[in-house]
């Protein structure tokens, strides 16, 4: 087994995704503690240009699997490409982002390699020679600390927006190594036939520093405009509790909570949300929580950093104005 820390680079539109920089940041810290180096694996079609970004953000070596067959992610194609690389060099640890494709790929890869896998990691640390991960379980009512056995291949799937991204240094040196992409018999059995972009005016929820979220207290789809206006002023993403999704006011990908997304923003502004445990499951990891609710007894206030007991229809426009004023002052 080598001492290297590997990351799987996720990318879109020819650039690494934000999660990739976060993985590189974590990998650098671990590799420095281990006295080893960081290898980034980039798979795709026409991905050669990624190497410069990955190198500048902490990769010492970039393994490039460049083939038309990898142009679109499928579990079959990516497992076939990645498994032999990992099996041949046996890195100390492989980090994969907890994204739609990362969650799809990592367990399959672990099953093929007989690797230890820990998903949903909110922390990954060295404890002597052990790798210890912390992950929320039981709808965030508990944190589990788990350790990989010493002699296994380790795959950690890490939550987005938790680890600070690696710093950029365009002068760093790194090597690029093209790797063979096996011809893959699975191509016939799984094929992406279409990807329909979902119109979202803002940053993806799981990557957002600030989230403005609305619940049943919004009363109807039209009132989400109030949230979008505040979100625009803040540069935030808009999310929701479950009732607005179930009522069809907003699409399913807005939902935050046990059956929706888990988010870790710096700031979460909950408007007209009561604070049910299933909602808290998705957002109580936010660093700062603001709750706006006209019921002073609402449970959301128990997790709120700042609470306003008041009518959101009155508060939100005022808040949007105040934020705009602040932003204008900050600009000027």
């Amino acid at each position, binding site marked *: 087994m080598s001492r290297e820390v590997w990351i799987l680079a996720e990318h879109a539109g020819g650039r690494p995704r934000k999660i990739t920089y976060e993985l590189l940041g974590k990998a650098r810290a671990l590799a420095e503690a281990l006295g080893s180096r960081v290898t980034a694996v980039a798979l795709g079609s026409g991905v050669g240009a990624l190497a410069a970004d990955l190198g500048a953000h902490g990769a010492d070596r970039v393994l490039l699997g460049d083939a038309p067959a990898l142009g679109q992610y499928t579990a079959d194609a990516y497992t076939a490409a990645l498994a032999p690389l990992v099996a041949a060099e046996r890195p100390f640890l492989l980090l994969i982002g907890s994204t739609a494709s990362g969650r799809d790929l990592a367990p399959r890869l672990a099953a093929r390699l007989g690797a230890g896998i820990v998903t949903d990691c909110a922390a990954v640390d060295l404890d002597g020679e052990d790798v210890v991960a912390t992950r929320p379980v039981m709808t965030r009512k508990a944190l*589990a600390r788990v350790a990989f056995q010493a002699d296994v291949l380790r795959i950690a799937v890490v939550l987005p927006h938790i680890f600070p991204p690696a710093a950029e240094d365009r002068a760093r040196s790194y090597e690029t190594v093209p790797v063979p992409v096996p011809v893959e018999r699975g191509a016939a059995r799984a094929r992406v036939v279409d990807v329909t972009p979902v119109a979202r005016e803002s940053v993806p929820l799981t990557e957002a520093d600030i989230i403005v979220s609305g619940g049943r207290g919004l009363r109807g789809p039209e009132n989400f405009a109030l949230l979008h206006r505040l979100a625009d002023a803040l540069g935030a993403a808009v999310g929701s509790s479950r009732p607005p999704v179930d009522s069809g006011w907003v699409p399913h*990908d807005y939902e935050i909570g046990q059956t929706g997304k888990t988010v870790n923003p710096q700031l979460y502004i909950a408007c007209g949300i009561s604070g049910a445990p299933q909602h808290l499951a998705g957002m109580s990891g936010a660093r700062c929580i603001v709750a706006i609710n006209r019921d002073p007894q609402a449970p959301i206030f128990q997790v709120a950093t700042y609470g306003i007991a008041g009518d959101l229809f009155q508060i939100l426009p005022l808040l949007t104005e105040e934020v705009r004023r602040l932003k204008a002052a900050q600009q000027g």
Partner: protein
Amino acid sequence: MHVVVCVKQVPDTEAPIRIRPDGQGVDESGLTFVMNYYDEHAVEEAIRIKERAGGTVTLIAAGPARAAEALRAGLAMGADQAIHIQDPALDGLDHLALARVLTAAIASVPYDLVLCGKLATDDNAAVIGPALAEFLDLPQATAVTRLELGDGTATAHREVEGGVEVLEISLPAVVTVERNINEPRYPSLPGIMRAKRTPITVKTIADLGVDLGGSGAARVRLLGLAPPPARPPGRMLEGEPAEVVRELVRLLREEARVL
């Protein structure tokens, strides 16, 4: 179309939990257990497929004696038969070893499609589905929001970052389901009566002919569960709305430093 659904029994997410003093699990006394939320959607999808295309729905659960209740609940919804893997050795298995055991159980019945939940709400792993696909050597589609079956193929919709992916897979396949794929039915009274009469096949790991050998040793181990860190006490802001809003923005900027 023969559909196998893997169902897990988990603590009801509504209930508060008490972490055991040894940190190795939760205190089960007084705790209500239910079928994993996403698995209800998987059972519903399987029954809808049977209603449209004929065939059978087989449920498989691995777990202690109480897990039979989750199987009964699925039978009451309309599944045809159920296999309960019950073995003291289940306790020490990691997800991949458990997937080996489930694989053997699935292989013991006819199947064109294996359905799982997107994840189990107790351990949040989302590992079993893709692991089954690997061990059964099948294509996979995870966190599926819509599933259409064709002739020897299936079309699955999945939410990906910034879009919806449409994936075509050949059958048999393993599919894990997202909650908005359907609305699970409530069991009917006749369904509940029938479920009570339907025998559940109980099997041990040895019955399934699985020899976990070296691969039975857990590759990851739980060091302990702890409650999440308490949030520092918050503050209610009081006064006229305009005043409160000004104070909030000031605090966000100067105290919380998030603006």
